[in-house]
C-alpha cells in the first residue's frame, strides 16, 4: 500500500452563520433587544417560556430576514411558517426553540467571492429565522451553570452554505465577504465580539476524485474568523491523519479550544440530535406577497463588489484604493460626496485611505458617527495640495474637524495661524538668517558633508514656526548653498 499524502484528499467545508438582527425588540415579544444589560432584566413571561404566553412575530425582524435573503440572492418563499425544534437544554426555557423547518424565509441563493483573485460562487442552501437562546455561564468550581435569558428571543438568522468551500482559507474568504455584504444591509452590527455574528463549520475529507461526501464533524465555539480558519486547519489535519492510517471519522460535534489551538469532542449529557420538529401551533403562517418582496428589494443597497467595480470605473480609482474604501459603506458614501466636490479625486482617495482612516481606526468608529462634512474635507485636502497648509498642519486640522463639526477649515487656519508661509521674500530672509547663524555647518557642507543640508532646512522651518512651505525653504537653501 502506498503512503497517502494530503494531496490524495479533498477538503469539503460548509458553514452555518448565525446573524443577530439589531431590531429594537426581540423576535416574539416586546422586550428590548439589547446587549450587555444586567442579567435577566430584558425578559418577560413570553421569552421566559412561562405557560400560557403566546409569541407574536416582530414585523421588523421578518423584513430584515427577507432583506438579508434577497441580498444573498435567495428565492424568498411566499409561504413561511415556524416550527418547534425540541431539545432540553437550560438556555432554552421552553424546552424547544421556535425555528423554521420546511418553509424557511429563503433558499437556493449564492454569494460570489474571490479566491486567490478568481471569482467563485458559494451557494447558499437556505436562510431561516429563529429565536436566539439564553447565555450559560459555566462555573466549573461550583459544578453549576448560571443562565441569563436576556439573549433569549433575539431575532437570529441562520445562513447555511452548500458544501462548496474547499479549504480553510476559502472559508475565511467567504466569511469576510459575507460579513461585508451583511454590514451593507444595516440589519445587524455584525460584531463577533458581541456574538451578533457567529459561525459553526462542517468539515469532511474525501479521496481526490470521489464525489460522495465523507463523514463530517461539526466545529463550534470559534469566536473569530481567524479561529474558524485555525479550527478548520486543525481538523483538516486531524481527519487526514485518521484517514491516511486507515481509520474512520466519527460524526460528532467538536469544540474549538482557543488556548490549546485544538478541537475536542464535546462531552454532553444531551442525547443524539433528534429534534422532532413539528409546526408551531402558537404562530399562524405568513404569506409574503410579491409586491412586498419587491418593496424590500428596492431597499437593498448596492453590494460591495458592485460598488468596488463602479468606483474604479466612475472615478478612476485603483483596485487597491477602491477595495479599501468599500470596506465601510459609509466611507464609500463619504468618498463619493467628496469626489463630487473636487477635481483632485486621487488626492481625496489618498487622504481618505491615509490620515482619515487612521483617525477612524484610532477612534474605533465609522465616518458616519462623526460630523465631518465632505466639503470641508475637500477644502482641507486642496489647501494642502496647493501648499497653503503643510501636511502636518492639515492633519491637525483634520483632527479638529473630526471632533467638532461646526468648525470650518478657513476658521481653523486663521485662528491657529497654521497657514503655510509661501511668501518668497519672507522665506528668503529666514533662510539667510539661518545660514548666517550656522556658518560652521555651511562650511562643513561646502567641504562635502551634504548630509547636513537637512539640518539647515530643519532650523529654517523652526524659525518660521513650522509655517514655512518646506519645499520652498529647501529650494532656497539649496540655491544659496550650491548656485550662489
Amino acid at each position, binding site marked *: 500500500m502506498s503512503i497517502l499524502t494530503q494531496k490524495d484528499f479533498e477538503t469539503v467545508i460548509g458553514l452555518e452563520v448565525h446573524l443577530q438582527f439589531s*431590531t*429594537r*425588540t426581540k423576535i416574539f*415579544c*416586546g*422586550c*428590548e433587544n439589547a446587549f450587555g444589560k*444586567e*442579567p*435577566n*432584566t*430584558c*425578559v*418577560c*413571561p413570553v421569552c*421566559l417560556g412561562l405557560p400560557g404566553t403566546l409569541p*407574536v*412575530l*416582530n*414585523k*421588523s*425582524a*421578518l423584513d430584515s430576514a427577507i432583506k438579508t435573503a434577497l441580498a444573498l440572492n435567495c428565492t424568498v418563499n411566499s409561504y413561511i*411558517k415556524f416550527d418547534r425544534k*425540541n431539545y*432540553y*437544554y*437550560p438556555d432554552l426555557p421552553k424546552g424547544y426553540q421556535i425555528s423554521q423547518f420546511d418553509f424557511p424565509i429563503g433558499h437556493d441563493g449564492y454569494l460570489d467571492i474571490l479566491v486567490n483573485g478568481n471569482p467563485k460562487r458559494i451557494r447558499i442552501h437556505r436562510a431561516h429565522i429563529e429565536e436566539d437562546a439564553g447565555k*450559560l*455561564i*459555566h*462555573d*466549573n468550581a461550583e*459544578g*453549576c*451553570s*448560571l*443562565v*441569563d*435569558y436576556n439573549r433569549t428571543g433575539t431575532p437570529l438568522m441562520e445562513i447555511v452554505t452548500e458544501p462548496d468551500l474547499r479549504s480553510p482559507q476559502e472559508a475565511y474568504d467567504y466569511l469576510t465577504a459575507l460579513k461585508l455584504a451583511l454590514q451593507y444591509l444595516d440589519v445587524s452590527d455584525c460584531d463577533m465580539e458581541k456574538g451578533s455574528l457567529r459561525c459553526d463549520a462542517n468539515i469532511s475529507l474525501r479521496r481526490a476524485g470521489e464525489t460522495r461526501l465523507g463523514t463530517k464533524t461539526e466545529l463550534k465555539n470559534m469566536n473569530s474568523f481567524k479561529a474558524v480558519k485555525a479550527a478548520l486547519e486543525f481538523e483538516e489535519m486531524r481527519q487526514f491523519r485518521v484517514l491516511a492510517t486507515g481509520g474512520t471519522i466519527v460524526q460528532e460535534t467538536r*469544540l474549538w479550544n482557543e488556548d490549546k489551538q485544538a478541537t475536542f469532542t*464535546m*462531552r*454532553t*449529557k*444531551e*442525547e443524539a440530535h*433528534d429534534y*422532532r420538529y413539528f*409546526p408551531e*401551533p402558537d*404562530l*399562524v*403562517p*405568513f*404569506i409574503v406577497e410579491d409586491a412586498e418582496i419587491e418593496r424590500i428589494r428596492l431597499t437593498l443597497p448596492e453590494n460591495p463588489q458592485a460598488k468596488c467595480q463602479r468606483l474604479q470605473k466612475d472615478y478612476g480609482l485603483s483596485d487597491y484604493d477602491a477595495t479599501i474604501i468599500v470596506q465601510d459603506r459609509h466611507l464609500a458614501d463619504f468618498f463619493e460626496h467628496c469626489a463630487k466636490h473636487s477635481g483632485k479625486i486621487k488626492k481625496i482617495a489618498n487622504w481618505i485611505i491615509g490620515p482619515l482612516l487612521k483617525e477612524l481606526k484610532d477612534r474605533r468608529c465609522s465616518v458616519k458617527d462623526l460630523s465631518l462634512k465632505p466639503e470641508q474635507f475637500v477644502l482641507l485636502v486642496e489647501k494642502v495640495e496647493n501648499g497653503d497648509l503643510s501636511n502636518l498642519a492639515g492633519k491637525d486640522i483634520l483632527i479638529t474637524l473630526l471632533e467638532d463639526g461646526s468648525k470650518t477649515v478657513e476658521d481653523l487656519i486663521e485662528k491657529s495661524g497654521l497657514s503655510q508661509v509661501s511668501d518668497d521674500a519672507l522665506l528668503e530672509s529666514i533662510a539667510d538668517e539661518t545660514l548666517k547663524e550656522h556658518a560652521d555647518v555651511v562650511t562643513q557642507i561646502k567641504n562635502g558633508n551634504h548630509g547636513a543640508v537637512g539640518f539647515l532646512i530643519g532650523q529654517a522651518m523652526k524659525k518660521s514656526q513650522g509655517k514655512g512651505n518646506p519645499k520652498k525653504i529647501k529650494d532656497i537653501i539649496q540655491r544659496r548653498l550650491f548656485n550662489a
Partner: protein
Amino acid sequence: MITNTDLQYISALARMSLAEEELKPMAEDLSSILDYIAQLQKLDVTDIKPTSHVLPLKNVYRDDSIKPSLTQEKALSFAISKAKGAFKVPQIVDN
C-alpha cells in the same frame, strides 16, 4: 407494536422516567395511536393542501416597539435556585 427500546428512547427525550410496570400499558397506548396514524396515512390526500394551523389566520404581526420587561427580582422569583442575578442549574457541558 412499539418496542421497549423505542419507549426508553422516547421517554429519555421527553425527560420522563417510566417505571417497569408502566412500560407495557404505555407501549399499548402509543401503539394504538400509531395504528390510528397508519390508518390515516392510507387516505388519498393528493389534492388536499397540508394544514399547518387550525385557524384561518395569516400574517399576525407586532410592531417593533419596546414593552416593559420584568424586573430581575420578579424574573427570578420562581427560580428553584439562583445566584448573581441568574438562574442556577446543574452543569451540562464538562470542559
